[in-house]
Structure formats: structure tokens, C-alpha cells
């Protein structure tokens, strides 16, 4: 049984991808630009160069410059505003920490794309939070979005450490 099992397992090595698919995939991959080995700062600059990533970061720092999403919320929503401002403050601290880690750590290549994806997600959450709060549609949902952004930033922080 053992012998048969091992022999049959080896048979599965015959599984191969289709040659048409392989040729097409190879061509498409090699047509993509790659990063070359550089100093960490330049590596980060290359990530920043990606349009989606750049837009994401610009949005985040724009929100930071505004002093937070909840500056523009009506005062009648005091409790939510207080809570949101607390989280917003924490987000800004975390962003500063992330900025520092990006500048001073040599980021593992496997993590670069994950960090990029997470930053994009953060931006989307913050954008949605901003939209919800501006239209005063649903401040509770907006707060959830901000919390979600905060959690994603914690994940990024963990990847950078």
C-alpha cells in the first residue's frame, strides 16, 4: 500500500500546464516592469510611483492635513465626533510611525505588494468614511470605516516591523 501510494503520488508529476497558456503568461509577465535592487528609500519611491499607491498616499496625507475627517461633522453628533477624533488621532500617530518605518527599514520584498494593497484599502476606507460624514448620511457607518482603516494600518505596521 505504502509503495503503491508513493508511486501513485509520483504519477501526479505528469500534471503540466498547457503550453499555450504558459507562453502567454510568460510573455505578459516579462512585459511588466520590475524593480531593481536599490537602497530601501529608492525601493519605496518605486512603490510610491505606482499611480494607485500614489493616489492612496496623497489622499491619506490630504486627510491628515485637513486635521481629520471629523472636523467637518456637525457639532450635534458630539459623541461620535469625540470617538472619531480619538481614532483619527491614533491613525495620524500610526501613519507617522509607518512613514518612519518605511524610511528606515529594509522592507521584505514579499511584503511590498501586501503593504501597497493594504494602503490602498486604507485609503478607500477613509474616502468612504469621508463621503459618509460629509453628507451626514450615516455617521455610525463612517466611524466603522475609520476603525477599519485603523485596523488595516496596524496590519501594515506589523508587516513593516
Amino acid at each position: 500500500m505504502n509503495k503503491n501510494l508513493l508511486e501513485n503520488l509520483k504519477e501526479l508529476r505528469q500534471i503540466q500546464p498547457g503550453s499555450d497558456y504558459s507562453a502567454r503568461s510568460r510573455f505578459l509577465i516579462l512585459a511588466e516592469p520590475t524593480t531593481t535592487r536599490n537602497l530601501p528609500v529608492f525601493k519605496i519611491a518605486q512603490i510610491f510611483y505606482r499611480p494607485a499607491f500614489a493616489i492612496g498616499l496623497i489622499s491619506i496625507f490630504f486627510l491628515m492635513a485637513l486635521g481629520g475627517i471629523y472636523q467637518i461633522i456637525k457639532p450635534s453628533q458630539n459623541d461620535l465626533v469625540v470617538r472619531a477624533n480619538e481614532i483619527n488621532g491614533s491613525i495620524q500617530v500610526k501613519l507617522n510611525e509607518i512613514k518612519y518605518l518605511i524610511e528606515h527599514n529594509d522592507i521584505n520584498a514579499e511584503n511590498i505588494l501586501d503593504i501597497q494593497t493594504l494602503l490602498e484599502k486604507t485609503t478607500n476606507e477613509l474616502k468612504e468614511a469621508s463621503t459618509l460624514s460629509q453628507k451626514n448620511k450615516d455617521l455610525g457607518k463612517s466611524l466603522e470605516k475609520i476603525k477599519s482603516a485603523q485596523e488595516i494600518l496596524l496590519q501594515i505596521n506589523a508587516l513593516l516591523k
Partner: protein
Amino acid sequence: MLDGEKQLIEQAIRGEASAFGLLYDRYQPQIYRFIYLKVSHREEAEDLTHQVFLKSWQTISGYEFQGFPFSSWLYRIARNQVIDYYRVKKNNLNLEEISESKIDDSSIGIIAILDDNSDVKKIKEAIKQLSPGHQDVIILRFIEELSLKETASALKKTEIAVKLLQHRAIKNIKKILNDNE
């Protein structure tokens, strides 16, 4: 590490697409096999394999030589890609539904030929029923015949942990095969 592999990797790190192309030719079949046996669907396996190599090409500048074959790094990316794939699928389908509805028995070529061999087909079905960790070790140790050291590197585990996992995986697959008879 295979002959000339280190040089190819160094060239790829410098951005030479032709060198990465050769690495692709060398490793793509086994990465595809690894993914195919885990997702049981030809087109999904093709898409995921494409993503693995695209990601590795885009991030190869950060690759560090640590005395392991390049494939260990690719397997790690492939595992993460499969985990993400199931994470996305999880909300819509559970794994049982996937194995019932998405099995690609209509695959052409060698897979269809293999399925004519009922023993091999049974083993392929049994692999689908294993946990992801047991699948990994069965594929890497017994199908790809990687050494303990290489498998440990690909799975980010110690060699002792791989031995234990391997023992349990074999026991499990035998049980599944017996139960299915």
C-alpha cells in the same frame, strides 16, 4: 541550488527579463502543479500561477540568497496566493462546495489521462480532502520530491515539524483512501 541558478537570479534581480524567463521555464510547471492540486480547477490554477510569477518578477529585487533553491521562495508566494484565493472564496462557497462543483474533470491533456488511472484519480481526490498543511507536505515531499530541508524552507517550518506533519499527512491520506473505498 541548480547549476547556473544563482547567476540567473542575480541577472533577474538586475532586471534582466530573459533571465527571469529561464527561471519561469524551470519552475512554472511545478508551481502550477502545486496550485492545481490545491485548488482542483485548471483555469483557477492558471490564473494563480500567473499571479505568483508576476508577483515574484515584480518583487525579485528583494530576493535574498539563503542557501535554498529559488523554488522555496516561489512556493511561499504560491501558498500565500492560494490562502488569499480561499479567503476570497470563503464568503461565497465553503470548501466542500468548491471540491464538488469546481472539480475540473473536463481538463484536457495529461490530467484527463491521469484520471483514467483510477488509483491516481483516487489519490488526487484524497489530496483535495486533506488540510492545506497536509496537502503542502504531500505535494512537496512525495510528488515534487523535495528534501526535508527544502520543504522546511518552503513551508517556513523546522525539519522536525515537517517530519511530524509528513507522518500525519500520510496517515490521513491513507485513512481517506480507505474510507473512500
